[in-house]
């Protein structure tokens, strides 16, 4: 297992490198001069040059890239163009927010998805199967931000069970954190629940027809044990592959759902950075997101290897 992790980490370096080259060269193509955005047209030529030099924009892009990379590997992603805020600091400050949202919604998606998928697979063509399948099909068609608006209208504005907006860090109050993260996480997790449910159902239906399930039943193992241990472990193999993709989707979806709930996470930071064309911030954000995705993939690979011994390196 350690070797698998190690091998993935090795593969990670070139990926991050390519992403960094991509974002760096891409953001350097931005149409407007960031210096103009910073000082406005009223600035003098002298001020212009000053800012340009402060930002290092007077150097060729390759030099800038190498310098940036040198700092980036040490964890310093530079400063925002618009204020003295460090990119690493800003991203790290928002990261827990987006991470809690993504993690809770992933948890919801996994629990709901597996429960619905298994329930549907156990009794194919029963009402519960139909309900789950119809639910999953519709669930995948519902925009997460719209669902969020709906949840706010019902559970926050009318019933007042949850706060309509905002985010409480878990360090401040775990209970308030849970309350603040529930509605956005449910909104975000809906379509992933649906995707996972569909995947679990089809995998489970396939697995339940396998000989080893019959063999386990023939040994007199209880239906519960056979389904939850023997069938689910195997059904999870394709699901885990989907899961890694779904978490990437959730991370992206969080960017939008954060807006519905006025949550100050990476999404708000990203949208601000894009509107301001704050290049270091965009670069840093992309890199951190890729880092997150890679960590998730690594984790799912390990789980995949655990569930599917054939995938383990011998």
């Amino acid at each position, binding site marked *: 297992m350690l070797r698998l992790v190690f091998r993935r980490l090795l593969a990670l370096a*070139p*990926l991050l490198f*390519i*992403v960094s080259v*991509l974002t760096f060269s891409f*953001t350097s193509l*931005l149409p407007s001069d960031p210096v103009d955005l910073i000082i406005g047209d009223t600035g003098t030529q002298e001020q212009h040059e000053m800012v340009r030099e402060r930002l290092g924009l007077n150097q060729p892009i390759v030099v800038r890239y190498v310098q940036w990379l040198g700092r980036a590997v040490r964890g310093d992603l530079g400063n925002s163009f618009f204020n003295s805020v460090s990119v690493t600091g800003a991203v790290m400050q928002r990261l827990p927010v987006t991470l809690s949202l993504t993690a809770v919604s992933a948890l919801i998606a996994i629990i709901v998805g597996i429960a619905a998928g298994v329930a549907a697979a156990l009794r*194919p*063509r029963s009402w519960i*199967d*139909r309900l789950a*399948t*119809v639910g*999953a099909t519709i669930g*995948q*068609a519902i*925009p*997460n*931000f*719209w669902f969020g608006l709906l949840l706010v209208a019902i559970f926050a*504005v009318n019933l007042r069970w949850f706060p309509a907006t905002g985010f409480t860090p878990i360090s401040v109050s775990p209970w308030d954190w849970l309350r603040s993260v529930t509605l956005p996480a449910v909104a975000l997790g809906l379509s992933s629940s649906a995707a996972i449910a*569909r*995947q679990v*159902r*089809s995998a489970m*239906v396939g697995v339940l027809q*396998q*000989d*080893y399930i*019959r*063999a386990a*039943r*023939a*040994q*007199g*193992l*209880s*239906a519960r*044990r056979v389904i939850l241990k*023997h069938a689910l472990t*195997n059904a999870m*193999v394709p699901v885990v592959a989907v899961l890694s993709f779904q978490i*990437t*989707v959730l991370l992206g979806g969080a*960017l*939008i759902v954060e*807006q519905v709930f006025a949550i100050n996470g990476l*999404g708000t930071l*990203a*949208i601000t950075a*894009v509107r301001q064309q704050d290049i270091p911030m*965009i670069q840093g954000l*992309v890199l951190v*997101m*890729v880092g997150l*995705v890679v960590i998730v993939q690594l984790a799912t690979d390990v789980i995949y290897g655990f*569930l*599917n*011994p*054939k995938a383990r390196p011998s």
Partner: protein
Amino acid sequence: MTARATDSGATRSRRPRWLAGGSFVIVAVAAAVLALLLFLAIFADLVSPYDPLTQNLMDSLQGSSAAHWLGTDDLGRDVLSRLIYGCRIAVIAAAEATTIALLIGVPIGLFIGYRGGWWDWIVMRVVEAIVSIPGIMVAIVILALLGTGLHKAMIALGILFSTSFLRLARGVVLAEREEVYVRSARVIGASDSRILLRHILPNIAPPLIVQTTLTVGAVLLAEAGLSFIGLGVQPPDASWGTMLSTAAAYMDLHPFLAIPPGIAIILTVLSVNLIGDVIRDGIGRGITVAARHDTPVARFEAASAVEPSAAALPPLRPDEVLRVEGLQVTVASQDGTGVPLITDLSLSIAKGETLGLVGESGSGKTLTGLAILGLTSVALRTTHGSIMLNGRDLRSLSQREIQHVRGNEVAMVFQDPTTSLNPAFTVGSQIAEVLRAKKGLSKKEAWERTVALIDRVGIPRPEERARAFPHELSGGMAQRIAIARALSCNPSLLIADEPTTALDVTVQQEILDLFRDLQAEFGMAILFVTHDLAVAADICDRISVMYAGEMVEMAEVGRLFARPRHPYTRGLLTAMPHASDRNPPLPTIRGNVPRPGTWPAGCRFSNRCDFRIAACERRIPLTGTNRLVRCIRAEELSLEAAQ
């Protein structure tokens, strides 16, 4: 097409089962929704009651009325009209982004698939990099470059989604390339590239269509999302996303504003996805090879259940372990009446005895084994008969009780050891699990006993092998493990379902020897299911021959081989020398076993029988005492054979 046929289809893909199960209506509705969308998009100017941008600030945030069916928004604009114009944006958005994705992705994918080398390497690394960034972030970054607006947002989404088309096109080229390469190696001089092109087009079309429908749905959702956060369509233009963006500010005052655009998005995406599912399944059917036959029946006409006849029963013996009488298993059919799969089956096995159950595939042998265990699939039902195991009727037991019986009193070894062992767990843990669950052993005891069992079935280095996963073992070794597991609780009856069929001939013999050894040691009765008469002759004491769901002959092994009395048995015996090549067409018996539901009314073998007479049109009873046969000409035929 019947419900049965779709059953096997549903297990194949992620398609919602209810879709094809007579839910043609839903597909029609989905198509109608999309047609309506297209209509509204084209004729928005004519259809919508108001100009979508004409505001009336004095009439803002009105509810539904005769003048404004869906009310008005914050600026007093007609919500219905804006919704209709939103259709146009949705159609443009979907068409634009999907086209861009196709135009970027497919040519590049074809190119790198064809060129290979470092072109391929570089592009694929870039694609991997893009795919590892959350899609919406990619779109946002591209929008930073392009600026906001519908068309720019669609270019961003087009670039984003082009990666999936690129990978798809590349995959098709690579697959075809392989094939063409093999072929052109034989036909020297043929141009690779021309053949390649000729092959790619027909192969790429179906998955492209599927991918396109998937993309359209995704684009619609992404467009709404981007417009919602203000990076897509810009107000005052009416898109569903911008309408929702406005609605978000008025959730406290006028939450209804969020409903119409939301429903429009959901309905559209849902319709596209549903149609996509149907297309995918339709194309999937064309590409993938015929579905596996999970159930023994695929097609049949409703047939009435056969009444069990007062047939001859096997003689009662004092040391009987299993006694089955008049067993009938049916499968539920569409019209509610059951179609029989096994009829009027009676057999018995004594302690230490091995009864062979022999017949071609489809004769119902395996099903008999499963029916004894009560493990037939949900659609199958045991309707008649009794299954007495050690004096208890298993049919009368509760789920709990029968679960207790399984493993403890009766166990089963399956045909293919590589599929009957769970690939996710070590083989040792699978045996230990049974011991812990059935015998209540501690973890340590169970493990020790497991190692001992593995040792007993003749596997060297048992401690080490116990920690192996099924895929790390050879077929023969895996089957020994399966046998060890079956015997772990010392059952009095072992059902062995073609336990040697999937193995190499040399290994077969070892496994048969193992069965014999173990039977000598544990004294269990064995129901040995096989199509291979040679194997049956080797291991069985008595043999029952099954044909089309019923027993046609039963005799002590030596006598059966010496003087088969049923024409079918004779056919099998004649075919025996060929049976060893594991591919058992029985050349001397013409035709195939008829499927359940299409059985001849009289003797079920009559349509393949060389000795058929008019009397065979009636139901033929099983006759005899120690030796049973179901043929009215048995006497004369046996005489004939003896001559």
